[in-house]
C-alpha cells in the first residue's frame, strides 16, 4: 500500500500494516505534517517525537519524495505500478493535477485500488473546502450535541474525525479487493469524512423526521425540550456513566441498583415497589410528568449514594451485581486496567532512534491464526529510502544520486 495521507487518513495504512501489509508512507522531504502534531515525547518537538506519529504511523515504511518535482512524481508512478493499494487525503483534484490521479496510475497498473479520503466528497459545493477536526465534527452533527446548553458546542479534546475516515478507507479498500480477486481489476474509492461523522450519531438521524424534533446538548444530560435524563453521575473521586432505565433494556439493572442502594439505606420505598419493567418509554424518549419526577428523584438519590464510593469501587461492585454502569476513566485508569492487563493488550515497542521502548495500544482484534503484528515502531524520516529505491524499484546508485541531487527524493 502506498500511503499518501496526513492526519485525515493515517489510520488506514496503520490498519493495513497491523494486518501485515507492506505500507510505504510517502513523505515530503521535510517530513509528513503529522510529525509536527503535539504532544511530543518528553514534550520536546522533533521529527521522530510526535506521539500522534508514533501511534498512527507505526509499522509503516517511510520513503521521502518531492511531489513538486517531475522526477519525484515519476518515482511515485514507479511505486504505484507495483502497488496493490494507494490511499491519499490531498485536496480534491490535487493528485490528478500533477499526473498522479487514478486514471493515470491505472494505465500501468489496472489492479490498483485507489482510495481518496475527502472531507466532503467530490461533488458538492464544499468539495474544495478546507477541513479540520472541529470543522468536520461540526459538519457531521456531533459537535452540536456536545456541551452545555447556551455554551459553545464542543469537539473532543483528542481529534477524532480523521481517524473515522482513515478506518473507513481501510474497510472500503478491503471491500474493493474482493472483486479484484475475481477479475484482476482495481477501482477508485472516495471516502466522505462528513458522512463518517454522521455515522457516529447513533439513533439521532431520523429523530427530526419521525419525532418532529432534534436533540440538543445538555451537559451530562440527554437533551431535548421534553427529555432530561442524566447519563453521568458524580462520585467520590470522579464520575460514573449510567442510565436509569426501565423496560426490556434496563429493568433488571435498575432493580439490582435499587437493591444495592437499599442495602446501604439509600432507596426510597417507591423505588423498591416500582415495576421497572413497566417503566417506559425507553431511554431516549420524552417522559411523562410522573416519570420525570421519579427520574429526578432517582438521579438525586443515586448521586448521594455514589458520593460514598470511588469510581473503581462502584465499577467493581456494579459489575459484580450486574448493574449497567461504567467509570469515567482517564488514561491513567486505562493504563492500570486489569482486564487489559489480563488480555496482555498493551504493546511494548523498541524505538531505535529514540533509544527507548514505548508502550502503546495493542491489536484492534485478536486473530486466532494470523495475529495482528503491532511489534514495529513508527519509521524515522526516509528510513526505508535505500531498500525501496534499490530493491523494490531497482534504481541504480547513479539514478538515486541524480534524483537526490535534483531534489526529487
Amino acid at each position, binding site marked *: 500500500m502506498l500511503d499518501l495521507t496526513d492526519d485525515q487518513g493515517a489510520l488506514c495504512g496503520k490498519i493495513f500494516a497491523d494486518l501485515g501489509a507492506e505500507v510505504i508512507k510517502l513523505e515530503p522531504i521535510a517530513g509528513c505534517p503529522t510529525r509536527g502534531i503535539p504532544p511530543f515525547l518528553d514534550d520536546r518537538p522533533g521529527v521522530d517525537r510526535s*506521539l500522534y506519529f508514533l*501511534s*498512527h504511523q507505526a509499522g509503516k515504511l517511510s520513503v521521502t519524495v518531492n511531489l513538486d518535482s517531475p522526477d519525484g512524481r515519476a518515482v511515485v508512478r514507479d511505486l504505484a505500478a507495483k502497488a496493490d493499494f494507494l490511499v491519499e487525503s490531498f485536496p480534491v483534484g490535487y493528485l490528478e493535477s500533477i499526473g498522479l490521479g487514478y486514471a493515470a496510475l491505472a494505465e500501468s497498473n489496472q489492479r490498483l485500488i485507489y482510495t481518496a479520503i475527502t472531507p466532503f*466528497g467530490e461533488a*458538492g459545493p464544499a*468539495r*474544495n*473546502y478546507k477541513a479540520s477536526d472541529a470543522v468536520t*465534527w461540526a*459538519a457531521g*452533527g*456531533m*459537535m*452540536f450535541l456536545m456541551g*452545555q446548553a447556551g*455554551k*459553545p*458546542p*464542543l*469537539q473532543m*479534546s483528542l481529534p477524532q474525525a480523521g*481517524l*473515522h475516515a482513515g478506518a*473507513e478507507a481501510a*474497510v472500503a479498500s478491503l471491500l474493493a479487493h*474482493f472483486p479484484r480477486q*475475481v477479475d484482476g*481489476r482495481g477501482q*477508485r474509492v472516495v*471516502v*466522505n469524512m462528513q458522512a463518517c461523522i*454522521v*455515522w457516529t450519531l*447513533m*439513533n*439521532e438521524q*431520523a429523530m427530526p423526521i*419521525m*419525532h418532529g424534533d432534534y436533540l440538543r446538548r445538555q451537559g451530562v444530560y*440527554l437533551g431535548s425540550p421534553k427529555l432530561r435524563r442524566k447519563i453521568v453521575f458524580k462520585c467520590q473521586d470522579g*464520575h*460514573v456513566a449510567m442510565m436509569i432505565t426501565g423496560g*426490556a*433494556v434496563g429493568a433488571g439493572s435498575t432493580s439490582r441498583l435499587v437493591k444495592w442502594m437499599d442495602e446501604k439505606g439509600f432507596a426510597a420505598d417507591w423505588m423498591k415497589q416500582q415495576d421497572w419493567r413497566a417503566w417506559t418509554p425507553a431511554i*431516549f*424518549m420524552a417522559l411523562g410528568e410522573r416519570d420525570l419526577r421519579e427520574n429526578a428523584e432517582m438521579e438525586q438519590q443515586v448521586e448521594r449514594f455514589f458520593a460514598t464510593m470511588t469510581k473503581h469501587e462502584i465499577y467493581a461492585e456494579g459489575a459484580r451485581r450486574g448493574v*449497567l454502569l461504567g467509570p*469515567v*476513566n482517564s488514561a491513567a485508569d*486505562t493504563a492500570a486496567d*486489569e*482486564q487489559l492487563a*489480563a*488480555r496482555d*493488550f498493551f504493546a511494548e515497542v523498541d524505538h531505535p532512534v529514540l533509544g527507548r521502548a514505548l508502550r502503546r495500544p495493542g491489536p*484492534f*482484534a*485478536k*486473530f486466532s491464526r*494470523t495475529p495482528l503484528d503491532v511489534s514495529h515502531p513508527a519509521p524515522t524520516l526516509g528510513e526505508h529510502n535505500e531498500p525501496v529505491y534499490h530493491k523494490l524499484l531497482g534504481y541504480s546508485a547513479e539514478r538515486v544520486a541524480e534524483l537526490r541531487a535534483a531534489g526529487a527524493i
Partner: protein
Amino acid sequence: MRRYALEGLHVLDFTWVGVGPITTKYLADNGADVIRIESAAHIDVLRVSPPWADGQPSSINSSQFFASYNTSKKSLTLDLSKPRAREIALRLLPWAEVVTESFTPKVMRNWQLDYPHLSALKPDLVMLSTCLQGQTGPRSGFAGFGQLLSALSGFYYISGYSEDEICPPYGAYTDYVAPRFAACAVLAALDYKRRTGVGQHIDLAQYEAGLQNLAPTLLDYFANGRVLGAQGNRSDRYAPNGSYRCGDEDGNERWIAIAVADDRGWAATLDALGAPAEDRFATMAQRFEQREELDRFIDRLVHDRSADELTATLQAAGVAAYPVQTCLDLHRDENLRAFDFWHWLDHKEMGPSPYEGLQHRMSATPGELRGAAPTLGQHNEEILGEMLGFSSGEIAALKREQIVY
C-alpha cells in the same frame, strides 16, 4: 464484472444491537447474503428503541434505530434457548462462509454455538465474536451499552469544557468506532481463508478497538506521565479553534466552527470578517497564548452574521469553517445530498423511511442499501422452506412450539 464487491458471500449473523449489525451491514450492502437470526424471546433492544415510524413504540417492526443498521439483510426468528432451534441454525452452517455474533461469551458457549463447536463442524469457518471487553479476562462477561464503554475507555474523560465540567459525546460512541475495525478484521480473515483455505476466530473487544482512537493520549501517559483532561475547544494546532455563535435562524441558535492553522489563514480570516489586524493576535504564539480573548474577539465579529454565508466567505479565503449542523440541518445539507447520502427506503411496515447511506463510494462495484431492514422473521418461510426444505406444515408446527419465534 461483478455488480457487488461481496457477491456470493454467505453470512450467518447472530449479532444484535450496535457493533455487530453495523459490521454485517457493510457486508450486506456490498452484496453478501446475510441471514440475521433473532428472536422475540430475547429481542434486539434496538427494535424497542426510538425513533419510531409514527413517533410511538406501536410495533416491534417500527424502530428506525434497528432499521438503520439492518438494511439488505434477511431475518429468521429462532429461539436459540431451545435445542431444536439450535439444530435448525446448525443446518445453515454448511451454507455460511462467515459467522458473526456479539453476545457476552457465555451465551454462545452455553448454546454450543461458539467457535470450538462450529469449527469442529466446519474447519475453514471465519467467525467474528465481538463483545464489550473481549472473550477472555476477568471482565469478559461485562454487559452494557456503548455509552458505558465510551466512559470506561476514556472518551468521556476528554469531553467537556474542563475536568470539572464533563460533557460526553452523544450516544454510544465506541459503537461507532468498533465496526470499521470489525469489518476490516472479517474481510482480512476472509481473504486469508480464500487464499489458504484456513479459517479462524476473531475476538474483537469494543474496548480495545475503541482505544485505537485514543492512542496518542495513552502514549502521552505512558511516556510523559500526562493525563489528558477535557479542555473545551482548545487545540494545539489551530487558533482560533472552535464554535462561535452566529445570528439565530428561525428562532434557533446557529453556530459556526472555525479552525485557523497559520498566519496566512489568520490574515484571510480577518479579511473575510472585515476586521482590522490586531497587534495582540499577530502571531500563532500570541493567539495560542490569548485563546479566551481571541474567542471573544471572534464571537463579537460573527454574532449577528449568517453561519452559511460566513462559511462560504471564510472558505473562499481558504479558512476551514462549516456551520455546526443540527441533525435536522444534516437532512438539508447540500454536501451530503451531493454525495447521495440519504435514502428513503420502503419498509414493509414502516413505509418510506429515512436511512443513512454509505460513507464511501466505489467506482466499479458500489455498494448500496439493497433493501429496507426486515421485519422480525420476515424471511422465515423463504429460509426454512426454500433453503432448508421444511414443509409449510412443519414450519407452522415450529411456530406453534415457539421454536421459530
